[in-house]
């Protein structure tokens, strides 16, 4: 067997083995959450490369080496699931860099981090002032997780005490001009519905690059032809405006009429509509 053929067959075989091993170790290996997984990834790769090109080495030896480097993290991973002590030892613990807004200098020294590096890591998280930080921890992966002080955190609907409508993931029903049948049925719509919606906005399915259905069953599309201007979905804003108009109308009738009983009926219904409007507004305005 010529050398080049040997290298090719070895490479192919090792590629397959490497693929299977990584797949077996799972996604955790790819994310390299601990230094254990980090060195393990490098070493298995190096052994594979070494054996693939070094024809004087036995392929079985390489496989044994890879097997050991695969088995140990695999077993440790299983034990780690059960025991917190093993987990802490094998995967390490995060180091607290900032607590109660104060920098822990000793911990910085322990992880060999300089002030500059800490500041750079904070800037990486869009924090330019240490005083804005309440708590920061260096994870075992080497990334810094930062908890800002409450007043520096972005405003959320909860902080503003605002009612917001719940949201569900949208379904992509058209890709590259082709209908995706499974997402379409999980969005609870039929093929006829999709055709009607496309007719409504006046585009053919071949022209649609991406089509998505949102929580409220509204279809939004992106076209291949970017010159065509599409109207945004009008159904919900229109409905909200109609409710508002009816409420105003009822108030007006109440003012205009001379009959006392009619006035009361109009007023009562206007109040009812106002309540309904308050309740339904978060769902209709987005």
């Amino acid at each position, binding site marked *: 067997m010529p050398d080049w053929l040997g290298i090719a067959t070895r490479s192919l075989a090792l590629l397959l083995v490497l693929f299977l091993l990584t797949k077996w170790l799972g996604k955790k290996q790819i994310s390299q959450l601990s230094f254990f997984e980090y060195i393990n990834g490098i070493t298995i790769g190096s052994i594979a490369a070494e054996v693939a090109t070094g024809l004087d080495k036995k392929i079985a030896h390489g496989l044994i080496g890879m097997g050991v480097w695969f088995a140990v993290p695999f077993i440790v991973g299983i034990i780690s699931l059960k025991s917190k002590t093993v987990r802490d030892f094998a995967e390490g613990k995060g180091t607290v860099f900032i607590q109660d807004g104060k920098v822990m200098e000793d911990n910085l020294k322990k992880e060999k981090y300089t002030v500059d590096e800490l500041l750079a890591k904070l800037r990486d998280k869009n924090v330019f002032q240490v005083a804005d930080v309440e708590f920061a921890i260096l994870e075992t992966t080497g990334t810094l997780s930062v908890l800002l002080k409450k007043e520096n955190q972005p405003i959320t609907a909860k902080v503003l005490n605002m009612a917001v*409508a719940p949201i569900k993931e949208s379904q992509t029903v058209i890709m590259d001009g082709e209908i995706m049948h499974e997402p379409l049925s999980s*969005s609870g719509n039929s093929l006829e519905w999709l055709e009607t919606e496309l007719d409504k906005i006046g585009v053919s399915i071949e022209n649609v690059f991406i089509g998505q259905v949102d929580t409220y069953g509204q279809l939004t599309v992106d076209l291949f032809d970017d010159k065509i201007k599409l109207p945004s979905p009008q159904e919900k804003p229109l409905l909200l405006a109609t409710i508002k108009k009816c409420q105003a*109308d009822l108030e007006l009738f109440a003012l205009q*009429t001379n009959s006392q009983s009619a006035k009361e*009926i109009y007023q009562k219904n206007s109040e009812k509509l106002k309540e*309904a409007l308050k*309740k339904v507004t978060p769902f209709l305005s987005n």
Partner: protein
Amino acid sequence: MTVGSQVKQCLSSIKSIEASLSSLALRTQDTLAKQTFHETMMIMDEIKNDLKHRVSEIEREEYQYKGF
């Protein structure tokens, strides 16, 4: 536009709101949204009945407004 036809217009707007809400309630994936749309539909139904009653009153009082 007379008061009679204005009230009738408002009544048909309420009917249209009810229908839109019903269609939204059917299509929405989220249960809370579904429930809210349904409850609002119920309120619309009550208002619709009151308005219908009022329309027939107006028609009785002033006969020339009768019919759509």
